């Protein structure tokens, strides 16, 4: 048998530093307030309870916030896939006047910080009557410049011959995109989907500005507000926190390769 590498002596404690807060999140969500409020505080509880979860479902509208976040995430992921594909393909393969200028402008918007545009965007949404609706959350994320750019780069890298063969067979531009190019682009499409999902699901700033009534909260806004209102109910707050965090962590665990490729794509293409 091979001896375990001595590197584990370094790596294990290192991993523990990252893991312990997560572990504490899980454990404390199953503790009672009596256990948490005990002095000196409990570090390893003697028993686990569901009080926190009961309390959080009674006092918070987490189910509703979940629904809202799911709607916003689903719509924006799908629309990004559609719009970024079309625009990315047009920029990659079609010759039209102004294409270079437009692409450069789109790329330039990547460096415009959100903080600069958030006040006028709020005013714009107010004029459109979208403030305090999910529409205000969806509209600005319908299509992202990074997605367009990423897919364009991918389409450029596909050998032209594949498309030319389909063109000669009599396929239209649309058919080529749908039947030939997009099936090849699955990894790139997954990257766009994952990045959109991460940004939209985890965002707090824009929902904080655009949403007022708690029935329209997203999970992050709901969690932040819930914590502010229930400062002493830590086990319930942690239960809520776990509910908000779990879907995205599970998604990451199931599709780790795709997630990591998506995150590294920001560096390679940046």
């Amino acid at each position: 048998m091979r001896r375990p590498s001595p590197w584990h002596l370094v790596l294990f404690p290192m991993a523990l530093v990252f893991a312990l807060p997560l572990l504490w999140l899980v454990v404390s969500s199953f503790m009672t307030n009596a256990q948490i409020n005990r002095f000196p505080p409990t570090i390893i509880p003697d028993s686990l309870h569901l009080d926190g979860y009961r309390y959080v479902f009674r006092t918070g509208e987490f189910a509703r916030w979940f629904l809202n976040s799911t709607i916003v995430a689903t719509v924006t992921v799908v629309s990004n896939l559609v719009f970024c594909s079309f625009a990315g393909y047009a920029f990659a393969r079609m010759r039209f006047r102004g294409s270079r200028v437009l692409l450069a402008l789109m790329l330039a918007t990547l460096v415009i910080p959100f903080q600069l545009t958030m006040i006028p965007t709020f005013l714009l949404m107010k004029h459109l009557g979208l403030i305090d609706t999910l529409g205000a959350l969806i509209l600005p994320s319908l299509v992202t410049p990074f997605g367009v750019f990423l897919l364009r780069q991918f389409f450029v890298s596909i050998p032209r011959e594949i498309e030319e063969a389909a063109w000669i067979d009599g396929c239209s531009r649309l058919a080529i995109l749908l039947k030939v190019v997009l099936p090849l682009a699955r990894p790139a499409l997954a990257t766009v989907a994952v990045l959109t999902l991460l940004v939209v699901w985890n965002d707090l700033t824009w929902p904080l500005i655009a949403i007022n009534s708690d029935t329209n909260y997203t999970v992050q806004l709901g969690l932040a507000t819930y914590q502010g209102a229930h400062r002493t109910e830590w086990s319930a707050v942690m239960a809520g926190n776990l509910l908000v965090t779990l879907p995205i962590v599970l998604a990451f665990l199931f599709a780790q390769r795709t997630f990591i490729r998506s995150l590294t794509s920001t560096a390679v293409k940046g």
Partner: protein
Amino acid sequence: MPAAAERRPSRLQRVFGDTPTAWLWVTPAVVIILGLSLVPMAWALLLSFQKSDFVTPSTWIGLDNYSRLADDPTFAAAVRHTLIYTAAFVPLSIGGGLAIALALNRRIRFVGFYRTLVVVPYIMSATAQAVLFSFMFDSQFGVANALLDQVGIARQGFLQDPGQALWVIVLIGLWSGMGFCVIIYLAALQDIPRELVEAASIDGARRRGILLHVVLPALRPVTVFLFVWQTFQSLQLFDLVFVTTRGGPLQSTTVVVLYVWQQAFEFFNAGYGAAAAYVLAFGLLVVALVWGIYQRRREARVA
């Protein structure tokens, strides 16, 4: 006539190229992206020269907002806190990320598991991180003080202590932000040609020599990218601060974006907030320009 010729571009396509279809395909993206970035950007510039409270008609006041900002001690403090956070977070996350990536870049058991644990905090939302650490560093019920009790060290205020709060936020930022550096470095390490390392070791270079003269130089472009990226992230810090401290205690953690948000959406000074946002954008522009110059010089060297 061969079949291929029939599918030659139609006359419309020959005159306009792909123009009609292409425009149809790019229009939604162009309208939404440019409409929601360039238009608000120009609008924010106009706002920054105005006194506006979102409701009553705004009045033109020229550069007043900017000159008021220059004399505003709270804004100066916000800039200072942002710079302190950046100065601590950027080098520590990159250095720590590099060290962890180097340790993880070997074929031993559980490496995938370790890597997963390091990256999960990065996937978590800043809100969730902030809520979790608010609890752990709660001065009364938090596990941090419980551990200090166990080893006989006096309890600390942490997020309630004006002298410590910003550093606790740096710590949370590092806990999650390091994971990003780790994956970027791991990807870059895997791209280093094996022959390069092998050639160096055949030449008798020691491990430290290989690290210093082969690995680190090969990682330089990625390091520069991370430097720019992490600086962008820290200058735009908001969610973590908003959920943990809202800028307190005693405004010891007010950062620039929080200041912009407060001015615009708490005190309804939209014009003043927009001016503060422009100051921030100018800082980001400087960072982006440095990055652009570096990229250009690198391309020139390669070409």
